[in-house]
């Protein structure tokens, strides 16, 4: 699971008000190189919840992202490549996503988060 996916997901258990951001429990993080596409990054930049994104990248062991951002930074290649790396190249291979409100763990195995709810959660 890449951080792009993480930034889109929340815990949707019945009754949970604030299921985002899911806390990352990282057991195994791998890096997989991906070709950079600046247009794609610029589009995604508008959609990403930055604070959650920085926090998530830190829990994956990457702390080279600025805390505060503004769209002007997209002109910098340096920033783009860091954003690219954190958004698309860091993979959570094994671990879990934890609901911030209930502590429910959504396991991540072989890079695939299991977001399916139990019977008493729907």
């Amino acid at each position, binding site marked *: 699971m890449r951080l792009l996916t993480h930034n*889109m997901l*929340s815990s*949707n258990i019945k009754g949970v008000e604030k299921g985002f951001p899911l806390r990352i429990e990282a057991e195994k993080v791998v890096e997989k190189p991906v070709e950079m*596409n600046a*247009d794609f990054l610029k589009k995604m930049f508008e959609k990403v*919840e930055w604070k959650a994104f920085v926090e998530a990248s830190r829990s994956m062991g990457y702390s080279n992202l600025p805390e505060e951002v503004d769209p002007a930074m997209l002109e910098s290649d340096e920033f783009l490549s860091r954003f690219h790396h954190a958004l698309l190249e860091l993979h959570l291979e094994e671990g879990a996503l934890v609901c911030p409100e209930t502590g429910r*763990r959504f396991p991540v195995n072989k890079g*695939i988060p299991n977001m399916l709810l139990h019977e*008493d959660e729907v």
Partner: protein
Amino acid sequence: MWFLCVFYHRLLDYRKPEVESLAHLFGAFQDQQNGDVPSQLQWKLPLHHHSDSPFHFVNLPSEQVARSIANRSILVKGMYELWGEGSSYEELKDSVLSYPDERKLPYLEAGSTFKITVDSFGKVMSLDEQKELIQGLSYIPFKGQVKLKNPDHNFWLIEIDNYGGNNGLPPIIQRRIFFGREVGGADRKLIPTYQLKSRTYLGPTAMDAEMAFLMANQALAASGKLVYDPFTGTGSILVGAAHFGAMTMGADIDIRVVRDGRGPNCNVWSNFKQYGLPMPVGLLRADNNRPPWRSGLKEIFDAIICDPPYGVRAGGRKSGGRKLLKGAVEPYVVPDDKRTDHIPSTAPYSLVECVHDLLDLAAKMLVMQGRLVFFYPVLRDDDCAETHFPDHPCFKLISSSEQILSSRYSRVLLTMVKVGAYTEEIALAARLKHLEFRENHVKWLQDGNLHSAVFSPIDSQLPEAGDSKFIKDPKPKYRGKYV
């Protein structure tokens, strides 16, 4: 500028929508975007031709656009600048000779290379006949060298005749001959490269490569775009989109399909690796009925492409047990020590509910002008001429293409464009509908049970089964699998 557009004689309903979509992708309508009315191309038919004919004329802004469309398409055999046409070779000659020299001479210059191909539709021509026809073109002042492999200019002489069968089409009344310069054509080599029989990881409903590419074209998949498939299965639809450079994301409710596959080198990832395509940016297990997207997230996908489970070859599932949704039992409370390995029960997911959820998800998550492309099953014995397709206030249906699967049912590829923003009212209406589905779960499952309509024995459908076996089915068949 008008071009002769010759199609492959298959998937008839899919051909013009594909060209229309690619025309959008390659900017044919850039100057004439008028709000929410999607622009359309102008088409003409040759004299006496039926709209299912492989021969059409299409008006495109430039040769460059025509070339881009033809080269990216799956069903365009060739796009040609027409130099002449006629009902006989004499008429053709007059027509070619009267075509302006300034359009012809640049392609006939000394120092260039060329090739003439003779093609026919509805008849077979021997090599000798072809040679004779080519020699008959000596009135065209070719100055270049003949080169059969990768020439600079490709010329085509195409003859259509109603002689010897009509290819399942209403007969073409008149013989017609075209001569033109090729501008571009589909790369059909893609299809054997991606064919399912050489794909490592397959499921029972894997989408065939040709259709997956057509879906990707309808969705305008291209580099820098994010394409999502909520029923991804083995990823066969996303493979098509990834081939055209899109970033892909997929979800499925079945964890075995999406995570485990059939071993370390036989899973969704390996299907992308096999063709050297970039991996999906995200794969997850999620329920389309209860999507796990964060509440503030919207307008992130450029396209959603999918083949929803319609319960003929595979049925849909959603969270919650069968008895739970009937209200027969209280939710099972999972003991704390079993939480990690618990396998939640699922219940059947009716097509109506599934399509409702899909439209609601797409209305929220697609960018404006984003496309929703999906298959919708239709029973063929419906007497009503007008089929009712699902609709949504945010979407405009721009094409529907039927593919006949059996005498009982077809699937229709629907392409919708998001033309309206997702508002509070629409979200509220969707929530109410969601509750209604939950309350009347059983009713929705019984309504429109496609599986029994497709598979029930003939006798139970037709009381006078004895006679009906001998009555010829009046329904047209030629839009079948291979046409």
